[in-house]
């Protein structure tokens, strides 16, 4: 965490989770009493490829400090191939954000199946830690959306 930061600051993390795997994975984490940070806000999407790059930017605009996409493992997409397309899109989007000078740790993709509650919780804990270290998202936020 950088020096000149508000000590009360807690990161806001948006996790887009595919309905068929990762959302169920999150459920399993919950019912298995595995913890993940309370500041991870899960948004359920029908498939990882539903994630329009605009959604990622919008999340940052509205105050997210990190955005993570979780979907079925490649090969296991409920719609067969959605996550393969999502994989290319997110690779190019993340690369573009990096090119514009946005900290590259603020975005991530993880494949989490419905059986991987433990992976879900570990991923979220790790991502939250990364974002906490990166500090507040100042480069891609919108002042008009701040309280």
């Amino acid at each position, binding site marked *: 965490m950088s020096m000149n930061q508000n000590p009360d600051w807690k990161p806001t993390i948006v996790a887009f989770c595919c309905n068929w795997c990762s959302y169920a994975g999150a459920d399993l984490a919950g019912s298995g009493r595995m913890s993940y940070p309370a500041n991870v806000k899960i948004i359920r999407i029908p498939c990882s490829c539903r994630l329009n790059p*605009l959604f990622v930017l919008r999340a940052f605009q509205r105050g997210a400090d990190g955005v993570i996409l979780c979907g079925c493992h490649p090969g296991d997409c409920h719609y067969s191939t959605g996550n393969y*397309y999502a994989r290319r899109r997110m*690779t190019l989007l993340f690369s573009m*954000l990096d090119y514009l*000078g946005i900290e*590259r740790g603020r975005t991530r993709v993880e494949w989490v199946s419905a059986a991987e509650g433990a992976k879900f919780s570990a991923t979220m804990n790790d991502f939250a830690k990364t974002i906490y270290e990166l500090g507040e998202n100042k480069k*891609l*936020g*919108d002042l*008009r959306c701040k309280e």
Partner: protein
Amino acid sequence: MQGMILDRVRALMSEGVATRVLGWETGEFPYDRTPKFFNESNLENLKYDSFCGCNLSKYLVNESEKVIALVKPCDSYSLTQLCTEHRVKRENVYALGVACRGKIDVNKIAALGIKGITDVEEDGDTLTVHTLYGDKQVARKDVLLNKCMSCKGKEHKNVDEVIGESEDTSSVERFDMVAELEAMTPDQRFAFWRNELSKCIRCNACRNVCPACTCVKCVFDNPNTGVQNKAAADDFEENMFHIIRAFHVAGRCTDCGECSRVCPQGIPLHLLNRKFIKDIDELYGDYVAGDEADQRHPLINFTKTDCEPSIVHQRGGDKG
């Protein structure tokens, strides 16, 4: 060149190929070239010379009648891409390839300190610039459009015939500047782009001119995006507009250079598009949009062994 083109167009018209031609005419200033549909009655106004930098292919979208279209080598990529996307019906176009030896950027002439330009005459590799204060000589190669200095090649793609001989004009490696930016630290890159993008006045010229941007309803016209048609009130709007504009044409951008050419603020938009092109080439194999008809572009395609998005973190090393 212009004479040859006019003769050929007249011949095609009398053969009944089409009744209209898409070409350029002189605009407000003697060195302006504006897109125009001609028919037999005004054909004598058709101009083809070193100021015809403007890409005409987008004007063919929604044409339902056969048109003879003049296409430079770079325009032919855009036209091919538009046909691939079913935005232009190839059978409605007689693509008349016209040779190109690089187009001139009148702003570069002005940047040499030449004021009050009234006309420009061309003779081989020298230009005679007529001004209110007398004539000046300029070397042609010093005032070429940036896009011509990193031209993809002078071979016409997918045209019906070609008139004249083109000359290679590329003198700058296409990806040099992108690589230079990649080598900077994230904070330097951020400063570079803030400096550039903060100049944007959201005139939307870059979107409107782009032959890859042909959606009937554009996301940026939706008031709910919060970034529609207005001067930016917050940095975020500029970032949002530019990331999404470039992303929407990723894989389809033919690197025709029109976006940067028309930007009244001189923002190097092609550096955003070229970043996508460079990434695509490096990660998914070399790909040139509009190179061939009916290609499947990299963003509507995949392989099971594609890299993971985390490659972005690995490639970047430890710089941020």
